[in-house]
């Protein structure tokens, strides 16, 4: 459930008359107006998770970098080993 997609905030505007905060967010080459009411701290350049046209959280870039680095190190070690399991798994499923 809950398809939410990360996108980069390009600009922010406050709608006249009703004070709703929204902005253009870019998703890999397309952009869309997204409501930013729930992410008052988001600034252009930040990434937000967008669900049904609303940003529901701001991606913590530093945290993402930190945790991903650990994963990358795991991955780097793995690639030094001979490739094996994928093939074995396949054979088992034919």
């Amino acid at each position: 459930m809950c398809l939410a997609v990360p996108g980069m905030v390009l600009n922010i505007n406050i709608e006249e008359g009703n004070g709703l905060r929204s902005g253009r967010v870019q998703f890999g080459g397309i952009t869309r107006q997204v409501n930013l009411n729930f992410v008052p701290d988001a600034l252009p350049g930040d990434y937000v998770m967008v669900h049904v046209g609303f940003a529901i959280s701001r991606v913590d870039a530093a945290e993402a970098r930190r945790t991903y680095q650990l994963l990358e190190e795991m991955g780097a070690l793995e690639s030094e080993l001979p490739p094996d399991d994928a093939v074995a798994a396949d054979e088992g499923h034919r």
Partner: protein
Amino acid sequence: MAEGPKSIADMTCPTPLRATDTILLGHGSGGKLSADLVRALFLPAFWNPALSRLDDQAVVNVNGLRIAITTDSFVVKPLFFPGGDIGSLAVHGTVNDLAVGGAQPLFLSAAFIIEEGLSRDVLRRVVESLRKAADSAGVQVVTGDTKVVENGSGDGLFITTTGIGLVPDGLEMSANRARPGDKVLLSGSIGDHGIAILAQREGLEFESAIRSDSAALHTLVGEMLQVTREIRCMRDPTRGGLSSALNEIAAQSRVTIELIERAIPIREEVKGACELLGLDPLYVANEGKLIAIVAASAAENLVATMRRHRLGNQAAIIGTVTDTNPGLVVMRTPLGTTRIVDMLAGDQLPRIC
């Protein structure tokens, strides 16, 4: 529980399709519902050998000449979209159906069903665009028809075409000719047309620079056929996307088609739109792409040839034909596992879940 069925041919539901006494939009989407309608209603009514091959075109023999015939209806909304309009689409779609049968496209007919109240200027622009596309493709519109229906009965304008071409001797391509070992080639990125249209639809608006890939492919096909005659079949994957076209071939040839997910070209914008709306690009329409099933020995050379053509510069080998699960299309994911690429029932709907 009963053993899971191993092949798509075994998976017919013992009860009839849930009573649709009415026709749904899904019946026109190029997926399972469409296929079932053809199999259950149209095929039995009109049965003959040419029709039964269910290729994109029919090849009939008249006094020694092999004539290819195809027919198509164009019901696109909106009528004008980035990269084309219903007029140019009508020419490209028809020419492509002929071209993928190896035919040299020659003549078109164009029947217009116009909704009362359509602006005359709109009609003029569509006709002009159709003319330009026909000239570019080297085909003539030799006959036509016009009908007007009451306001409210249509989306402004529908166009139906028939295309006629000639198939050279010795060329036999059909969806039932794929064999284990063959390679699957794709001429370029998938999903461009469908996403270009979707971006204009009310309720889903997003901004994108994506243009429909609508184009006439017959010159690309011509160059491909110059290089090799070991092409088993070609398809242009329109409604229902890459998945429908490949599933049809897998079913007709009773083979498995194994795709490599990483090898399939997709533009960043199409990927972004699909991620946002929860769509799978494999099911999104194309209007200027083709797939070719070709003998393995000819594949590399053919891809290189395609890449030299304007409409094939992203061409790639995306898979292989095998015999492990006849009738199924499967995908090797980037993680090395496999999943089925199923034929969709009706239209693919955007999702939030």
